[in-house]
């Protein structure tokens, strides 16, 4: 497996919030503006890349029975480091992200990548995986934040982009807007995945997947559940 492939899979094929549907708490909560989404994403890129690297480095030392505790300690330490650095160098962003910065510890992407990838792969591949997944997460949050900010506030990164008479859809920058937006994006992703599969002539398979209702889930390969099931059989 090439490092490049590990990097790029997080950008589209296993895009965390929209494909794996992981890390939804921050995805929904902080994306009321593009800038907040970008800031949250940057913090996650930092934590995810470093935690993947460190966990991959110490993976042979950590006893299997306490691995989850060890992963959490590593992720938590990195998150506290991010929190301190953010307070020292980007205080306004820290004020806006509030409680969601410490909550990166329990973001399922961090633990998910540690367990599914970093604990089984080398340092370079793990770093690439973390960086790719983190950037995918950042892109998704910025995208969602942009849509919500443009529709709900008429601005993008704080600049007015809508025509003068535009009446902002306030609901979009509030909690319900996050759910509506995310739902539409997930539906769009499913449709895309289905179309792609059909074009490749895998119609029967695509139809079956659609009927199961998890057409867009790259899940099994991503979570390692498929491999475990195969072993069990």
């Amino acid at each position, binding site marked *: 497996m090439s490092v490049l492939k590990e990097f790029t899979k997080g950008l589209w094929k296993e895009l965390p919030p929209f494909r794996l549907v992981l890390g939804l708490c921050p995805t929904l909560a902080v994306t009321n503006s593009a800038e907040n989404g970008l800031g949250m994403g940057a913090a996650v890129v930092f934590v995810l890349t470093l935690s993947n690297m460190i966990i991959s480095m110490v993976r042979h030392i950590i006893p299997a029975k306490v691995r989850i505790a060890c992963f959490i300690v590593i992720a938590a330490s990195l998150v506290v480091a991010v929190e301190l650095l953010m307070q*020292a160098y980007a205080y306004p962003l820290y004020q806006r992200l509030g409680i969601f910065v410490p909550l990166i510890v329990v973001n399922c992407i961090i633990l998910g990548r540690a367990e599914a990838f970093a604990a089984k792969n080398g340092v370079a591949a793990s770093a690439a995986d973390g960086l790719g997944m983190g950037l995918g997460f950042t892109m998704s949050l910025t995208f969602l934040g942009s849509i919500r900010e443009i529709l709900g506030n008429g601005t993008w990164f704080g600049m007015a982009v809508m025509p003068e008479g535009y009446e902002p859809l306030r609901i979009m920058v509030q909690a319900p807007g996050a759910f509506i937006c995310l739902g539409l994006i997930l539906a769009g992703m499913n449709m895309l995945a289905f179309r792609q599969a059909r074009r490749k002539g895998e119609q029967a398979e695509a139809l079956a997947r659609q009927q199961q209702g998890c057409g867009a889930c790259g899940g099994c390969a991503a979570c390692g559940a498929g491999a475990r099931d195969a072993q069990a059989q």
Partner: protein
Amino acid sequence: MRDMLRMIVVLSMLCGLSGFALSYLKMITAPRIEEQVLANVQGPAIKRVFPYAENDPIGERRRFEADGRSFIVFPVRSGGALVGVALEHGSKGYGGDVNIMVGFNIADDTLAGIGATTLKETPGLGMRIAEPAFTGQFPGQKAPVGLSSGGGVIDGVSGATISSAGAVGAVNNAAAVYARLKKDILAAWAQ
């Protein structure tokens, strides 16, 4: 048994290492964080209370001791003379502590104004204690102030009595500290 020992050793070492690394990081970022908090939280509140300040209240701040606690007092000058001071105090609100920056006019000990610094009150209800409709009632009053429901002069935000009482309590706490410290304050910044 060996497995057990290994688990304990690895996990303890990991925790110890991260503890040391974090306390080191906290130590080196502490001064910078304090500066940022002052500039981003206290600074705007002082600006709201004393829009006519001609000096840099944050740069000239000093610590004073009162009631076994230390308070940061921010001096405000206009035309070269010390006209007011601001200090922050808190009280219990509905969602946590209500912290308010309270400004005092040195000349007659009246309130110059108040500005909220940290609030965790209910949005749309308790949070309205930060709005001018509520805070605008304080300038010119003499502490201690009370809510109109208790015979005082301040109209609380309707539906948010606990938050309003928290704000009034914070103002009165600050006033008590100011009364105790006034001599020291005047001595410290006397011309």
